[in-house]
Structures are given as structure tokens and as C-alpha cells.
């Protein structure tokens, strides 16, 4: 579904990503692991078109997308849940969900999907008219995920959805990711929490200083060995 070949990304003269290859198959959940500054979020931003690569190619369902605008990429079927529970803070929950469906023109379908989101996240139904910026961290993450799903993405990219959440909420988000996966949505996940990243993934990539260091399945090593690889460069 998603194929990245020879990707290089620069911020000014600093090279954040070096000659990176990555594949995500249809229906798979792929976790990207790495220490802070290893380039995980940069990869997600590049896939979603917000950051342009210096060189390399990104193909989505056979179409090259690395030179496309972000709005075109969303319309092609790549949705995203950005890092840090990014919401439109002054908009209500309902308006945030509608913004998630910005690329869609089927009003009836959007209304149905909003209902489905409220069924999936019942706590949000009573908060539909509340400003998103006033919700708790967990509820904000739910809105962010729901908004990402409103575009009916074929590939959902999620950037640290469990960051800063309480253990109970982390479990809740993990269960949501599993549900989305079961519905057949392909997921590219960046997550610091190794336990969750391995728990939901079919394939794992480990990044170090912008270069791919390891590619494999979650069962290839124990969780401790993964932690060592990711954070201790073991």
C-alpha cells in the first residue's frame, strides 16, 4: 500500500532522514520506533505531504505522492492523527469532526460517520457542543482519532497517540487502535510506548539518527530487547 524508497529529508542543512526504505502492506499495522530526534515524526510529515523530501520516492497504492500537496494526499486516502493531540481548540467537538471530513463531499455519509464516531466514543456524544480545547487529554485524543477517521482513510498515520496520557487512557487508546485495525484500516504508528507499539504491530521499524536500523516482526525479540534496541542503541 505504502512504499518509501531512498527517502532523504532535510531541515535546512541538517539531514533528518537518510536513504530510508519502508513498506506498509494493505491491512497491516506498522510501528515506527526510535529515540527522540530519530526522525519518526519527520517520516509521517513527509508521507502526509506537509514536509517535502529532498530525494527519494513515496508511492501510495501505486501512485507517486512525494510531490503532491497535503490536501491531495488526504483525498487519496491518507489520514493522520498528529502528535500532541492536535485539535482546533476553539472549535467544538462536532466542528472538529466535520473538519476531519473536509475532503469529503457526501454530506449524508459525513453525518452517518459522525454518528458512528459517537457510537465508537460514547463519551464524546455529550461533549459535541463543547470546545475541544477544554476537554481532558484522553477525550482530546479520542477527538483527534475520530477526526482522523472522518476522512475514511485507507491508511491512518498516528503520531504518538498515547503521549502524556494516564495508564487507563493509554489502555483505552490501545484498544481503539486495535478496533480500527480490525476494521481493516492500515495503520502507520509512531509510539514511544514500546509495549503498545509492539502489541498492535504486524511489523516494526527501528530508526536511529534518521536511518533505518532494524526491520522485523514484533515476535522477533522480547520487549526488553526492543527497548534496548530503540533507546540504548543495543
Amino acid at each position, binding site marked *: 500500500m505504502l512504499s518509501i524508497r531512498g527517502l532523504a529529508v532535510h531541515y535546512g542543512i541538517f539531514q533528518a532522514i537518510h536513504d530510508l526504505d519502508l513498506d506498509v502492506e494493505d491491512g497491516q499495522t506498522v510501528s515506527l520506533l526510535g529515540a527522540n530526534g530519530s526522525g519518526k515524526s519527520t517520516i509521517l510529515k513527509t508521507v502526509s505531504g*506537509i514536509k517535502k523530501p529532498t530525494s527519494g520516492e513515496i508511492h501510495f497504492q501505486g501512485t507517486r505522492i512525494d510531490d503532491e500537496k497535503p*490536501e491531495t*494526499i488526504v483525498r487519496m486516502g491518507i489520514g493522520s492523527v*498528529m502528535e500532541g493531540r*492536535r485539535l*482546533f481548540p476553539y472549535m467544538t467537538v462536532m466542528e472538529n469532526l466535520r*473538519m476531519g471530513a473536509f475532503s469529503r463531499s457526501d454530506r449524508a455519509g459525513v453525518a452517518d460517520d459522525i454518528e458512528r464516531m459517537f457510537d465508537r466514543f460514547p463519551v464524546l456524544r455529550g461533549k459535541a*457542543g463543547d470546545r475541544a480545547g477544554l476537554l481532558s487529554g484522553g477525550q482530546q485524543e479520542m477527538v483527534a482519532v475520530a477526526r482522523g477517521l472522518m*476522512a475514511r482513510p485507507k491508511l491512518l498515520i498516528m503520531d504518538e497517540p498515547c503521549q502524556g496520557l494516564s495508564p487507563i487512557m493509554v489502555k483505552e487508546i490501545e484498544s481503539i487502535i486495535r478496533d480500527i485495525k480490525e476494521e481493516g484500516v492500515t495503520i502507520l504508528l509512531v509510539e514511544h510506548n514500546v509495549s503498545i507499539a509492539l502489541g498492535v504491530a504486524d511489523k516494526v521499524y527501528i530508526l536511529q539518527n534518521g536511518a533505518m536500523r532494524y526491520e522485523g516482526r514484533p515476535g522477533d525479540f522480547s520487549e526488553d530487547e526492543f527497548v534496548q534496541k530503540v533507546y540504548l542503541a543495543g
Partner: protein
Amino acid sequence: MTDRTVSTGLWDRLTWWSVALVFLFFLTLPLWFHEEYYLHALVNVFIHSMVAIGLRLLWRTGLVSFGTAGFIAIGGYAAGLLSRDLGISFWLSLPLGGCAAAVFAVAIGIPTLRLKSSYFFLISWATGEIIRLSFLYLFIPVFGGWQGFRKIPPPDTIIIPGILLIDFSQKVHWYYLALFLLCVSAFIMLRIDYSRIGTTIGALFDAPDLCEAVGVPTMAYRVFAFATACFMAGVAGAVYGSFNTFLHPESFTIIQSIETVSYVIIGGASTVWGPILGVFVVKGIAMSVRGIGAYEIILAGALMILVMIFIPEGLSGLPRRIRRYVTRRRVKESMESQHGD
């Protein structure tokens, strides 16, 4: 949630009632107030208000233009040329003047609106100056150069036999024309505010990168806002030119552009009424101190700094701020009385 909804509803009703009362006041003003100086000044206030509410739309995308005066000039010169030299009716020249400014804005905006706001500020400033200097030094036989662009005709007479004759020979006719155009502009801006376009433009201010992530064509929205702001400026320029029968490039310097920005900052950009309030405050103080002239920009600058420090949301946000303060006090008093019990 309920409390907030109710109080917001009450707040909205109060705002609308205030707007209706103010509108009624200005609608009836010439019936009982005939001082020409103030009517003339109010025409200028209404014209500047049109420019300011247009600029507010661009402000809401997170960008600010310091070249607005140049686009007023484009509208003024274009409409003036059409009506004076080509004999086209003012009523057609008016929107065409706006369109000329909007087309130029699109041509400038497409390559520049993707830049960071600081670069856009510099480019808009340079654009405004290039426009002004072009009218000063290029095509002098057409634009008049230092002599200015003279003898711009007034609008065609409006006649409803036996009922109405408006020939724009009196200030009161201009007063109602400018008030009407301001109301139309405010109505258009309100429609935009409450539409999906307005919501998206608001989102663009809060989180531009998030807008991109959900598939908003951010460039298209910025270009739309810039073109609309410049269209308003162009229409205002067309009225300004016809009202004064004369245009001179020195009326469209960076100082005028900065003053336009000051209206938005002083009045506040959260509502359409904010920038209009800003114009009234700056022009009102300048009017009440006759002869302030060149010092008006110093006054606007000083007010702008004070408002940015003490009321960042602008003067239109002041009642909301007072309301929040009163609510907090009430809660505090209630908690203190409970502790006392």
C-alpha cells in the same frame, strides 16, 4: 456547558441589539445633524471601515498585509480611469475597481502567500510601495504623476420620479452611499464568517499545519482571503476617488497601510464589528482634536501598542473581558461566603 451556551446566546443577542441600535443611529443621523465637516469625516470613516473589515479576513488566516494602501489606489485609479476616460458608469466602475485590485492580489498572492508571515509582511509592504511609485512615475499622461489624477466624476444621478433624486452634490448623499456600501461589505463578511469558508479560515489561524493534515487547501484559502480583502480595498478606493474627485499617490503610502492594520488591532479581529470600532476610535479621536493631521498615525501607533499590551483581543473584546472578570469575582465571593458559613 449549558451555562456557557446560555450566556453566549445572551451575549450574542446583546451584541446584535447593540449593532442594530448603532445602525439606527447612523441611519437617522443626517436627519437631525447637518454639520458638513462631520458628515464628510463620517464618509471617510465608512470608507476606511470597508477596508478594515476586508483586511480582517486576511488577518484571520494569520497573515497581515502592509500594502493595503496600494490596493486602495488600484481600485481608485482603475475606477477613475473607467468612469472619467472611458465614460463607464460609476456603478459599474465601482465593482470593476474592486476586481482590478483583487486580480492584482491574486497575481501577487499565489507566489507569496506560501511564505512565512514575516516575509509576506515585507513583500506586501514592497508591493504597496511599488504600486504607489508606479502611479507616481509611470504613464504620467494617464495617471497624472505628481499632479495627481483629477476630475473623477461623481456617481450617476439616481432618480425615482417624484420620490427621490440623489445627484451626489450634497455630503448627505455620499454619507448614505458610503453607509450602504459599508453595510453590504459587513453583510458579506458576516456571511463568510458563518460559512464553511469562514470556519476554515478561523481554523487556519489557529492551526495551519493541522489544516493541511485534514486536507484543507490552505493556499487557496489564503489567496481567497487576500483577494477579498483587496477587492474591498479596491471598492473603497473607487468611492474615495469619486468622493474627493481627485487621487494622488502620496495618499497611499505605507503610513496609510499601517493605519489600516491599526484599526484591526485596536478594534479586534474576532468579529466583523471590531475593525469598524477601531476606525471609529482612531478617526473619532483625530476628529475631536481638529488639526491633529500628521499626528494621527502616532495616535494610532500608541493606541495599537496599548491595546496589544492590555487588551490583545482588541477593544471589541473588552466587554467579554469585563464579563469574565465579573463572573470570576462572583465565583470567588460565593466560595468565600461558603467558607464563612
